């Protein structure tokens, strides 16, 4: 394939031809009721995307047919589309060699997991959970991947990585608890610790007690923080939207938006939460930068176009990863400092309620526990919240140890303690 692409780029149809290749080799094993009885699949997804610019306009075409004819056809279709479009006021030429030279590539180490190891992890889990009288559902997946970007400026960059995960929900007759392990290749997976922690919490979640929704001091587990924070950032961090008055940050320029201790940043080569050192769509180098620091918005997210217009470095419309700087306090330590409150393991179905004030709604899910005198004392019925993320960032009183996570993006997120978290209604379980 490389030789085909090089051939095309030797005689590019215009002065703007970008060809990107993405290769994902996924093995995903899904289970429920303590057996592998759902999606159990292998897929090799290889896709080529061609972008052709012509006189200030850009067309693109993607295909998973990697033959020479097909890639040439994609070039023609992208060129044809570009010619039919109106001139783009935000047109950007391809990444140059000088720009690409700023990419800090890295080589994450990961091994290949055998089928025996994967199904073995699951069989062990099913055995222990059955022994504990619990049911389970979840999935184990491994995805080695490669991103490549070529263009007619002579750029050819490539990065290989791997994302593996085990997500497991353990269920009693009337409750559940979920935990995940995100890794490159499970070399860091300790089945005994992982499963015993799940069993302990699932047992504790049994028979949720009725409780009315009010404002509570909460310890939010890393998943809960990630789900809410990433949604908030996604809606509000675009620099152009902020300048155009369409973001919650628009009316908060220069204002304090978080407590001093909160530091949210991106670091493309982070040890556990890295995916790629460049943007897979165009080869733009991802940079490390602070997003929220010293209580203020430090830097928003800039597309290549908007960064060039404003004379600042581009971060991408979504950066390489999201790191919320943690401490070395385990979550138990955070719990031990709460006299009366709730531990929220994760959230579910978070949606925007009010853009300009950063208000979101959502439900608690898979583990909502009462904290009394610094200890988890049992579970309670799930709640709906309607919460301003600005209030959450302001009212965060303690920060714990980071955990690698991967839902919307690569992330490393700690548990946090927040006072006055706004629960507004309850449900029947």
């Amino acid at each position, binding site marked *: 394939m490389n030789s085909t692409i090089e051939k095309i780029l030797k005689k590019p149809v215009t002065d703007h031809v970008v060809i990107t290749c993405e290769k994902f080799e996924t093995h995903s094993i899904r289970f429920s009721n303590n057996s592998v*009885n759902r999606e159990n699949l292998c897929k090799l997804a290889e896709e080529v995307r061609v972008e052709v610019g012509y006189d200030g306009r850009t067309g693109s*075409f993607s295909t998973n047919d990697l033959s020479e004819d097909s890639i040439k056809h994609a070039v023609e279709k992208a060129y044809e589309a570009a010619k039919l479009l109106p001139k783009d006021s935000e047109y950007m030429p391809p990444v140059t060699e000088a720009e690409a030279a700023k990419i800090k590539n890295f080589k994450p180490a990961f091994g290949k997991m055998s089928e025996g190891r994967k199904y073995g992890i699951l069989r062990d889990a099913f055995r222990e959970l059955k022994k504990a009288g619990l049911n389970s559902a*979840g999935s184990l997946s491994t995805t080695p991947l490669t991103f490549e970007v070529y263009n007619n400026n002579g750029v050819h960059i490539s990065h290989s990585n791997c994302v593996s995960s085990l997500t497991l929900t353990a269920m009693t007759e009337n409750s559940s608890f979920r935990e995940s392990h995100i890794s490159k290749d499970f070399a860091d997976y300790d089945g005994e610790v992982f499963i015993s922690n799940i069993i302990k919490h699932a047992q504790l979640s049994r028979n949720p007690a009725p409780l009315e929704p009010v404002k509570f001091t909460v310890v939010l587990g890393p998943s809960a923080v990630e789900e809410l924070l990433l949604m908030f950032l996604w809606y509000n961090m675009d620099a152009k939207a902020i300048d155009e008055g369409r973001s919650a940050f628009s009316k908060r320029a220069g204002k304090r938006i978080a407590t001093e201790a909160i530091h949210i940043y991106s670091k493309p080569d982070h040890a556990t939460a890295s995916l790629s050192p460049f943007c897979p769509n165009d080869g733009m180098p991802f940079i490390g930068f602070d997003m929220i620091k010293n209580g203020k918005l430090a830097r928003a997210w800039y597309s290549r176009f908007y960064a060039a217009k404003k004379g600042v470095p581009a971060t991408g419309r979504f950066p390489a990863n999201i790191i919320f700087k943690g401490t070395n306090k385990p979550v138990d330590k955070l719990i031990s400092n709460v006299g009366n409150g709730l531990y929220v393991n994760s959230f579910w179905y978070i949606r925007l309620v009010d853009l300009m004030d950063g208000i979101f709604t959502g439900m608690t899910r898979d583990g909502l526990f009462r904290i009394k005198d610094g200890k988890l004392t049992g579970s309670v019925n799930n709640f709906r919240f309607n919460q301003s993320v600005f209030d959450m960032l302001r009212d965060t009183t303690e920060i714990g140890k980071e955990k690698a996570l991967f839902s919307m993006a690569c992330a490393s997120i700690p548990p946090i303690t927040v006072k006055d978290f706004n629960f507004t209604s309850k449900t*029947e379980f």
Partner: protein
Amino acid sequence: MDNLSEIINYLKGKKVRFADAREHLFRERQIMTEDTRVEGINEQNVSGTGIKVLYENGWGYASTSAKGMDSLKKAADKALSLARNADKTATGKVELAAEPKHVAKFATKTKEDLFGPGVGDAVAVLIEAGETILKGKDVIKAGSYLVFRNVKKKYANTEGSLIETDISTVLPQIDATARANGEVKSRHYWPAPMNAGYEYFRGLDFKTNAERIAAQAREHCFAKSCETGATTLILDPEHLSLTMHESVGHPTELDRVLGYEESCAGRSFATTDKLNNFKYGSELVNFIADNTLEGGLASCGYDDEGVECQKWHMIKDGILTGYGVNRELAHKLKLKRANGTTRATKYCDVPITRIPNLYLAPGKKPLSFEELIADTEDGIYIEGMGSFSIDQMRLNMQFGGDAFWEIKKGKITGMLKNVVYNAISYEFWRKCDAIADKRSFKRAGFITCGKGDPMQAAQMTHGASPARFREIMVRRAKH
């Protein structure tokens, strides 16, 4: 012999209990505009073959984008080896509901090929809509999103079925955002996405609607805040399409009900002991599942396990009467047949139970929309989809909307803002006390319904006539 039949024969020789193979060509054009520029055009052709194998009591699925027999055999062997591994963890016997052998073809009725007109034609329409929106007072942003999709499939299984389908889908959306009076508010025009050809897109009136949404986005900025408290709601068909999707469509997927989706999409309160006896809504409430609906987004002739598309009552006179059922789980309800609503997004995806085309049947008594409003003393009228969230058992739900108006003494008066309502799903449907008749029935739908692991996006049509709900808890979204 064609490749699919050959690979099915190959697997028959490997003593599988069941296997099917699906050649799947997915073609799509997405156009996004921002103000008067094209923000992006994504065109894609993704094709390949997926092979599903049942060995003893274990399932395996593997796929390949290559076309040759060698690659297909490799994928078949892989699917078989995965199925053997799964079988080792099996806890029960897999029983497949019988389905007649189908040798058939099905295609969306279209007049004009979606990909016939060049991309420039559609872009020109969207840019013009953007220009119209931006002429609106205090408007700061115009946007659009257009999808043309064509999916061609060939399906074969070990029971002798051989099915070809050819489905075309159009999804058009335009949006306006205004900033005034210290507020930023958006309004959209999302005509129903349809299985249709280019003629459907051509027939839409973007100009009038662009002017309307630009003016309403601004008006929303000056609206007064709603009061918190229980009130009467009248909901338009587009809005109801989202509430029914979340609170009726998903809870009646049998795989969810039986716990198979626990780890991702969640479960359902509508458990099988409630079938034919649970009061899901008031007696006025009838939900029809219909994958034979012409132009419906889930109307595909035959689903991805070779089952013919069907029509059934999900809820009849307020009582839960059905589920979306695949071949593997039908026997759990003692059903003889699955109901043809198992679909996969691309060739590499495993077919799973999806929400069918599902609509709230119009009221049987003559009642126009105007009469429904006139019959309502006080309340809130909501149009369009906004914020939406529901718990994983599909009980506690909270919805916003795209635009809200106050109803006073039987008349729609000024616009309201900051409206969200909160209810337990079945209690909400029990509080439905009027549904307008078929004259005001409208469709809406989705092409991005997420389910499965790995996640897949499915499409289905919904629809309703405007309906009224009493004593619903409305909350002011912010103070």
